[in-house]
């Protein structure tokens, strides 16, 4: 028995070592460097500095991410519900194809695209002007926080809709029919029958999207207006301009905490949900 356990330990060792070297070590090293001085003593100096320099950006990041996540949730629920519940099948299959396109476009290309689309003299405004709906004077630039949100949502919508509509389509069709012949409308079916059952999937989609948004550099750099900007841009700036890894890592620690905060909220919510129906 004892022998067997040691044996199987040896089997997982290579994988465990890989994880430790390439994942755990860098992670802990960066966390460590966020809270220590050169001589190895613990300090809050880097964190304090990060907050004093970038507290606005941290708030800005949180606001952007929360706004994007809310819009993302609303839109992906709407689109998935339309795909799964709509009686117009041909329209739905077109929609089903369209919403997936952003999945295959990298963030940097998306950012570039949105830049030319949303700028003051960009494609969107030009189209409005050409169609006579606006004069060149009235046009406003969407670059800045709205642009960042639009870009994040545009890019992540495909991902979360894919997860969500998959989960909705996997529900037993008869559950929906049972609600229907008890007199429930489509909207009621969505809120009473489908959403409670796909809530965990929605949570996963939103938490993963948050992590992605926190880590993307190209969007705040290309769509943002400079100040305030997102934490990922600040981190890049600290490293590239000052070689200041400590403050960059301190910012990293903060964004890590924000993500875990969201994950905790999601976990608590889904546990509470289970508890309520148990």
């Amino acid at each position, binding site marked *: 028995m004892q022998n067997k356990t040691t044996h199987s330990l040896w089997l997982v060792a290579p994988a465990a070592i890989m994880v430790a070297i390439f994942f755990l070590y860098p992670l802990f090293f960066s966390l460590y460097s966020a809270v220590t001085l050169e001589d190895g003593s613990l300090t809050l100096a880097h964190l304090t500095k990060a907050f004093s320099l970038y507290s606005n950006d941290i708030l800005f990041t949180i606001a952007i991410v929360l706004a994007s996540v809310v819009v993302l949730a609303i839109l992906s629920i709407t689109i998935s519900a339309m795909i799964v519940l709509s009686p117009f099948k041909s329209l739905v299959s077109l929609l089903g194809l369209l919403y997936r396109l952003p999945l295959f476009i990298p963030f940097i290309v998306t950012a570039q695209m949105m830049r030319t689309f949303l700028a003051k003299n960009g494609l969107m405004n030009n189209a409005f002007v050409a169609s006579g709906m606006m004069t060149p004077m009235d046009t406003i630039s969407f670059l800045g926080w709205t642009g960042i949100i639009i870009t994040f949502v545009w890019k992540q919508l495909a991902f979360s809709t894919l997860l969500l509509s998959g989960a909705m389509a996997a529900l*037993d069709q*008869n*559950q929906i*029919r*049972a*609600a*229907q*012949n*008890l*007199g*429930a*409308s489509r909207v*009621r079916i969505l809120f*009473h*029958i489908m959403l*409670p*059952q796909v809530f965990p999937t929605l949570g996963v989609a939103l938490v993963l999207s948050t992590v992605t948004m926190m880590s993307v550099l190209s969007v705040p750099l290309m769509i943002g207006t400079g100040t305030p900007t997102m934490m990922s841009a600040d981190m890049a700036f600290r490293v590239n301009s000052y070689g200041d890894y400590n403050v960059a890592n301190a910012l990293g620690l903060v964004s890590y905490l924000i993500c875990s905060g969201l994950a905790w909220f999601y976990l608590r919510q889904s546990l509470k949900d289970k508890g309520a*129906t*148990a």
Partner: protein
Amino acid sequence: MTRLNIENLNAGYGNKQILNDISLTVEQGEMIALLGPSGCGKTTLLNALCGFVPVSGGKIKVGNRDITTLPAENRNITMVFQSYALWPHMTVAQNVGYGLKVQKVAREEIEERVHELLSIVRLAGLANDKVTTLSGGQRQRVALARALAIRPDVLVLDEPLSNLDAKVRLNVRHEIKALQKQLGFTSLIVTHDQEEALVMADRIAVLNKGQIEQLGRPEEIYQSPKTPFVANFMGAENQIVWTPELESSILTGNSEALFVSRPTNLTANQQVFFRSENVTLITNTSRFDNDNSVLSLRGHVMQSAFFGNNYRISVQCGEHIIQADHTCDLPANTPVLLSVPAHALHVYDIETSFKSNAYATIQTSTSFQTI
């Protein structure tokens, strides 16, 4: 609860037509069983009634109300599903009360009705349990209570018992029947178990390839099936095609011949169906009287199977294999004489142009029964 009237209903998926010209009236408080082999369109018919499958022709009426094109949520017809289709995130009480909640009935009234229904289906103590913790039989009773809660005009049940094991199935079967008598709901129940249909239904509609082959009281369907398909489906699994050759072999009266006698109502180019329970088997093959009121034939035992109250003996008679019930076991190759009284024979003409078609039907239904 009111009467359901289906007139010349046509329905299908895309351009694949499944239901052809179905006409059926379910009287108020009546339970009709839809019986038929797999794929014949039973579920499709129920779905068309509920509004899940669009109707391409004909009319559906509940009382005086034409509901043919009404959306599912306005029909007031509820369905009990084979897979229960309960909502796993809700409790038993929430499942049962959902239809009333949708109708915006007051909370106390919902509670009262849920309580009443749960005691009717004998689940009174389980109101706050999660449905995922219930057994199959309990789940199906919750589904039944849920469907009855809104007092539907018509209740349809799609093989409500086939996910349950044999014993539970009998229990729930009795419960549904008792409830139906007590509450008097108009209902259609789908099954492909003939015994279930016989026991539960006031009338039976036998469906084949999207058409009603026969509609009648259980006794009628069982004792005088109108078509070879119905005869075969209702358990008359022995079939003999009475060819002109067989007819002439009888007339010559050869003592070695396969057939010893036939009743006078059987003539050439007919086919005959009968049940194994109506076959009398004797091992004394020398004793034969040329009796014009029985079909009798010679054969050898192929195998016998123990069925509890009797043995089901397979007898090879020339190219036919006949199943006969017998009180004791017989070794293989025992020569036997089989006889079937005329009243137990279901005799049908074979129209020559129709012949191949009739065979095909019988083939499929036979293979279905052996599954």
